[in-house]
């Protein structure tokens, strides 16, 4: 017999490093309005969420980003993350929006947006992100591991956050994290057995970020997992919010 509590809520502040909002064109999602998304965040005990537009990712970065800015501008919950498509975006337009709205992180999707993740394609963008200390989120499903390694190794003063790592990529992701200290891991799909201990045994706790991938995944199971890993309050706080705050260079976000 156990004393498991069926009513879970997080013990620490939670700043989700990976949610998306917006309707999709190819299917109806269970949550597809900003109001619903915020209700789900509140119910899960999440105080803020780094948010990108699904339209930016799947259809067009510029129009999705503009819509995201208008949605998040007065939100206490949603912190905007722009999607960058260097193959189609205007560099001047994208960088001016980043500057105007103090964007602290961007997301790249080389496979979805059909471009090689190589220096001759992305150098000017990466150099600008480096200058502005903007961090780069990239899904491990979205990139060739060798290309990713090369770009990260060549840009060690840029922070890269590897998102949605699943057991399918876990072997190379772990090695890459161990080799390159400017990489972080977002945990939304990191559900392999004892996976949190595996990370803590191999990389600094300051490089681990809670993210949910909501609404493609539920918010709370990974929080529940983290709360049952016998972590200190300090470590739990770092993973659930503080590391992300530090990465965005802005405690006020």
């Amino acid at each position, binding site marked *: 017999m156990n004393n498991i509590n*069926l009513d879970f809520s997080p013990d620490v502040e939670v700043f989700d490093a990976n949610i998306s909002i917006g309707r999709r064109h190819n299917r109806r999602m269970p949550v597809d309005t900003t109001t619903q998304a915020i209700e789900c965040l509140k119910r899960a005990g999440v105080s803020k969420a780094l948010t990108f537009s699904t339209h930016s990712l799947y259809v067009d970065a510029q129009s999705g980003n503009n819509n995201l800015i208008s949605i998040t501008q007065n939100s206490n919950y949603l912190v905007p993350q722009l999607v960058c498509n260097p193959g189609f975006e205007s560099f001047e337009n994208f960088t001016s929006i980043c500057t105007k709205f103090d964007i602290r992180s961007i997301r790249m999707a080389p496979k979805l947006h059909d471009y090689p993740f190589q220096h001759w394609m992305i150098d000017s963008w990466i150099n600008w992100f480096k200058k502005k200390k903007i961090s780069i989120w990239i899904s491990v499903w979205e990139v060739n591991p060798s290309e990713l390694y090369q770009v990260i190794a060549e840009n060690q003063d840029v922070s890269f956050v590897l998102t949605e790592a699943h057991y399918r990529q876990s072997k190379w992701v772990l090695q890459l994290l161990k080799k390159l200290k400017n990489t972080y891991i977002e945990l939304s799909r990191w559900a392999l057995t004892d996976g949190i201990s595996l990370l803590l045994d191999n990389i600094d706790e300051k490089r681990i970020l809670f993210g949910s991938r909501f609404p493609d995944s539920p918010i709370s199971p990974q929080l529940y997992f983290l709360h049952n890993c016998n972590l200190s309050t300090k470590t739990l706080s770092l993973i659930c919010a503080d590391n992300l705050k530090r990465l965005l260079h802005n405690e006020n976000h």
Partner: protein
Amino acid sequence: MRIIDFHNHLGRHAEFMADDEINRFLKIMDASGIDQACINCIYHYSGDHREGNNYVSEIVKKYPDRFIGVAYVSPLYPEEVIDELNRAFDVLNLKYLKIYPNYLQKPVNDPSYFPIFEWGNSREIVIMCHASYIFDEPPYTRPKLFVELAKRFNKIKWVLAHSGNMKQGQIEAVSAAKQCNNIFLETASSWGEHGTIEYLVSEAGEDKILYGSDMPLLDARNQIGRIITANISNSAKQKILGENTAKLLNL
């Protein structure tokens, strides 16, 4: 409350970074609040289903309060299957049968499975089968295939592992469970979107859902978190976390 995890594996599997080191298994069960875990061995290093079943039995004998043994047979060796089923259930006292058509590279309704299903039907056993769509290609185990089987072999209680996995599969799994009283849905998945457990409960009914983690492929703390944090009643959570399995397996 008694928590029973319906879906776990013994053996190592590199693709999933899965390692069945038993103390770690027990540590995670304890941290998750799991009282008992059903264990099968579908990837024993010998490749022999009999050896896999022996290994399961050995672990159950060592930890009788923590593990419930599950049989596995492969139709690649039809000449061994019936004898092994008799031994697994009558001698080793394993509680249900797991099958995995992806190894066979034929759909679950392929006739090579029928001797197993006929035996299972005569014994009125529980069979759990991997049931995933569109994650697995070709779709040997897409949930809609089970409707015909559940009607033909209607004394078997069918459990669809992963409840179809991705959304398209979940829709088929729910439809199968609604059409057939003898189809149940198991929850382990690394794919489920927001609202998956709520969807399964509202459409298939809380009596038909069984909590499983698929450990050591996935961590039970993450998987049990999908049930505990779902927006469903506590009584539904209790049924899913153990009561339904206890009833299904007559525990």
